[in-house]
């Protein structure tokens, strides 16, 4: 996957879609294409956040562990970003990421990601939109849970 293919992949990702070409090319060139086999751990809950992952092929399972039990939160597929929250918040990983099938990812170094987003208003707006959409989805999910609990009482 050469760097122009990576540029094309990043363009399909909402966070980067509006970013200016020069910044996108630098992100692409400085990134690393990595491959994980089925079941391999991409990163573990509690690990230091060293990068953001853009999924090129395959699916990534997002899970958290509570009392020794792994709970699947989401399955994320191609053209999506994973791992960006821990990088933005500068905190350890809040969830584990595992490959489902063979997965090919583009890994963007944390420092490069933060510099790019903070230096590009369009990219920063893209990140904000992603986070707001997730917050909105979580609130809706919470409302559905509360509603189902209320109706069962």
């Amino acid at each position, binding site marked *: *996957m050469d*760097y122009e293919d*990576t540029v094309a992949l990043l363009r399909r990702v909402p966070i980067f879609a509006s970013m200016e070409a020069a910044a996108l090319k*630098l992100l692409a*060139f400085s990134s*690393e294409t*990595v*491959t994980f086999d089925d079941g391999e751990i*991409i990163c573990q809950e509690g690990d230091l956040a060293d990068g953001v992952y853009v999924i090129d092929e395959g699916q990534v399972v997002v899970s958290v562990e509570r009392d020794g039990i792994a709970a699947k939160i989401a399955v994320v597929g191609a053209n999506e970003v994973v791992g960006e929250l821990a990088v933005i918040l500068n905190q350890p990983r809040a969830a584990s990421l595992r490959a489902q099938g063979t997965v090919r990812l583009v890994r963007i170094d944390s420092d*490069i990601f933060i510099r790019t987003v903070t230096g590009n208003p369009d990219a920063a707006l893209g990140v904000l939109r992603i986070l707001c959409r997730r917050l909105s989805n979580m609130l809706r999910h919470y409302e559905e849970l509360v509603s189902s609990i209320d109706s069962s009482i």
Partner: protein
Amino acid sequence: MPLIAGSIRDNLLYPLQRQPLQPAAYSDDAQRLFEERCAEAEKTGNSSSDPYANWTDYAAAGVTDECGLTERVLQLLDQVELSQDMFSLGLRQSIDPDRHPKLAARILEARRQFGRRLGEKGLRGLVESFHPERYNRNMSVAENILFGTPVGPTFDPEHIAENPYLRRILDRLDLTDEMIEIGFRVAKVMIDLFRDIPPGHEAFERFSFISADDLPEVQSCVRRVESESLSEADDEDRMMLLSLPFKLIANRHRLGLNLREAGIGERFLAARAAFMTDLPADLAGSIAFFDPNAYNAPASIEDNILFGKVTYGRPQARRQISALLAEIVDSLDLRREIADQALNFEVGIGGSRLSAVQRQKIALARACLKRPDLLILDRALDAFGPAARESVMARLMAESGELGIIFVASPGGEPRGFDRRITMEAGKVTEHKALAAPDAPATDPSTAGIGLA
């Protein structure tokens, strides 16, 4: 006291070297020269202490000779929980197989076992071995052609394009023009990527083939070549463009140059063969070629064991390879000797090549080596996390016999195990309290420690 520029060994032994204790052994001529220097020094009021004498006070460290001292040093480094770091640093060191033939032979055995175990565990894809007839996609073009470890500056990969011998090889194989063409395409990509990046941006240092200082010159070169043609470019422009493709690593730099389809890998292999076969005798000492059955002296211990390059794009590779390497090193009982080599690691000015925690651990081991009656630690472990500080201090107290310790702690950084706490504010003692067990050391009052906050 901060670390000095020198090796880890130099830093650790510094407090033991206060005066010459054992004279150096000189030949007749050298002895005469030494006596002349001493006489001159006395006349001019300078020190006549011989810097080449043995200054090490073994008795102060509680040992009798160099072997005992090394063993004591490694024990202390273990006590301050630096053993794993020493092992990792040791792997990065190189050894002279003539001076350490047995160690070199055991490292070669580790190489053989490593290669075999890679296959048994199904991990061959994680390391691309050095094979004389295969292009290694995880090495640069320069490294592939040289197929060895440079000794000295002659074949320094950073300046390889300027080497006359290599230039003759490339000319003979009709590779020069093709590489200049590739260099022209690389230059255009680099300009496209970095022209709007400010100088000093870390992206230049980490990712660019061209420094920020050289970028304007390369831009001018590309403009000149674009307005004329590559064949009409002058020597300076051709040299500038020729230097770029040597840095390309096929599996790392995905510039869309389609080098594989162009069959250029095979042409580089031909250059490798010609480079090895035609190397003149006066350049033979400037490179150590990769030989699966021989120890490569200028390469690191780790590179000698791996005898290949870790594959790009497999993040689990480094972890799995490190685990396998550690397993083999332990099975061959090599860990201690590799850690011993780490004592030769150069720490840089003020220990700049080490992390803050590593610097503080070495400083602590240095202080303990001379077996003081009283150890004063003035915020000496501030870079440690709380758990590491507790662990190191607990081991120090348990293993240091009758050592008294005064620990000056930052707020919240007070370790356990002391029998007295003195709190000071604005230069005045505001609290002086005996600490009740279990915080106090177990039984022996002579191991009393005082914590200052």
